[in-house]
């Protein structure tokens, strides 16, 4: 565990600090996916300020809650939140994507405390989380498993295979959170491959569903309370949230912020 005096209990403060880190690290690494990270960072901030029972102190506990970021391209969001919550040193963020650095452009687990699974190829996180949830059920081990997915990722067949299995075994310890920002790699999800009626799909697969505002901490926190079935929280989000010129833009799936972009972004990312 790292002594980090400024660990956050306030979700809004954590999310704001994480957004600034995301902009900085994406710019200095000349990396992509800043829009995806800004979209999901509030969800992760809610999870890592108490909703998920996981902390630097309990990483060895077999019954801790597990968080898997299946949309591995939003790595900068996970790394920022974990670092700010004391899982590993803040300096690691500065070498993001560097040669021999601990943190890569897609979520890397090896040697990174708090990261449960290396991801990057979509559709891997849910089957893996399903396995952990299944094993815990069979062994009578408590602790929830949260899998954070992107909406575009739900094109993957493993999503629906997993949904069937989780229902069949009634894995009420498994929660999927879909970062429903409506945009995927080239255009809108609904223009790429229709996901709607999205909530009905999950319901039809036997899951409890809850719709939440993915940037509203109370709404997210309420939606994430335990359920008696596998739970899918559809978190309605805005890609690039918090930086107006990055919002709802496919461009910021790819572009890395320039020096000028950083200044403009930082002028918007201030405590209100």
């Amino acid at each position: 565990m790292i002594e980090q005096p400024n660990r956050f209990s306030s979700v809004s403060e954590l999310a704001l600090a994480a957004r600034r880190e995301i902009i900085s690290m994406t710019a200095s690494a000349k990396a992509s996916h800043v829009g995806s990270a800004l979209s999901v960072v509030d969800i992760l901030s809610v999870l890592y300020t108490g909703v998920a029972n996981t902390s630097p102190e309990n990483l060895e506990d077999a019954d801790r809650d597990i968080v898997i970021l299946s949309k591995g391209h939003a790595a900068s969001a996970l790394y920022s939140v974990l670092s700010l919550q004391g899982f590993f040193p803040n300096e690691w963020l500065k070498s993001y994507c560097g040669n021999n650095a601990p943190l890569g452009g897609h979520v890397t687990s090896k040697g990174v405390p708090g990261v449960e699974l290396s991801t990057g190829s979509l559709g891997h996180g849910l089957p893996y989380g399903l396995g952990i949830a299944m094993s815990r059920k069979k062994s009578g081990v408590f602790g929830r498993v949260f899998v954070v997915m992107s909406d575009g990722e739900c094109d993957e067949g493993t999503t629906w295979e997993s949904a069937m299995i989780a229902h069949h075994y009634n894995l009420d310890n498994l929660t999927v959170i879909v970062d429903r920002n409506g945009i995927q790699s080239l255009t809108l999800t609904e223009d790429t491959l229709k996901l709607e009626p999205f909530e009905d799909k999950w319901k039809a697969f036997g899951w409890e569903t809850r719709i939440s505002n993915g940037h509203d901490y109370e709404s997210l926190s309420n939606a994430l309370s335990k359920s008696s079935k596998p739970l899918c929280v559809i978190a309605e989000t805005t890609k690039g949230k918090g930086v107006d010129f990055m919002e709802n833009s496919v461009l910021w799936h790819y572009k890395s912020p320039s020096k000028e972009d950083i200044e403009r972004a930082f002028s918007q990312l201030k405590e209100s």
Partner: protein
Amino acid sequence: MRNAFAETLLEEARKNPNIILITGDLGFGVLDKFQNELPNQFINSGVNEQTMMGMAAGIASTGKRVFVYSIGNFPTLRCLEQIRNDICLMNNSVVVVSVGAGYAYGSQGYTHHALEDIAVMRALPNIEIVIPGDPIEASSVTSFLSRSSAPSYLRLGKSDEKLINDSPVSLVPGKYNEIKRGKEGTILFVGSIGKIAIKAEEMLRSKGISVSVTSAPYLSHPDRVYLEKASKIGPIVTVEEHSIRGGFGSSILEFCGKELINAYVRIVSASQTNLSQIGDEDFLRTANGLSAERIVEEFISLLGY
């Protein structure tokens, strides 16, 4: 071979509750006993190999030793990326078990023939490939794999294989299992195709040519001492029920090249001349160049008789 696997795994799983067996909805009449006796250690995932393999990795991450059972290409090619990322990269304790190596499913057709799986699994880092030659070897390697935690690939034949060994064996990585010792050359094989190697040895013997017949079940761990000796005795003919591209013979050539072992190696493998050809296992083996006669021809040409 699949029964030897299932029986040995059940014995091990009785002693170790951390052993979990997952099937992709296959194994009728083979896994029933395990399922009935240890239901809490058994999962039928349904027909969903990609999710099944990711799930297996997740289960393994909780401290379990997970065996995933399916036919030939389904738990290998169909879910290759799950094996690569979720098992090999994450170093999860999963044994991928494929049943029906090579032409074992005979007239079921090419979809059910496993002829490229060794090459594909060999291309992956951090996974051990294990191919027993008969039910006796299958039992030994299953025990070994039950006690190991390494990501592994176990390639099994199907049923009613000829016994090649005449008594129980205790196989370990890095050591070949020599079944017959000869003086002029060596037939080195993996898998149930070993039966044609045994027959070839008999045919050669009747011609006055003496060769060793040796099984190499732990494919990822070549027996350097054995290969060095064999290369001094005479030519080595490798035999595998698999494509020549990236298979067992190819692994021996790579090893000998890297280790500067000066061996004459010929590869007997499946020629795959007609992918849609229908027929039973023996017919397809012979039609694709996998026969005792073919091995005999190789030796005669190599030894200059």
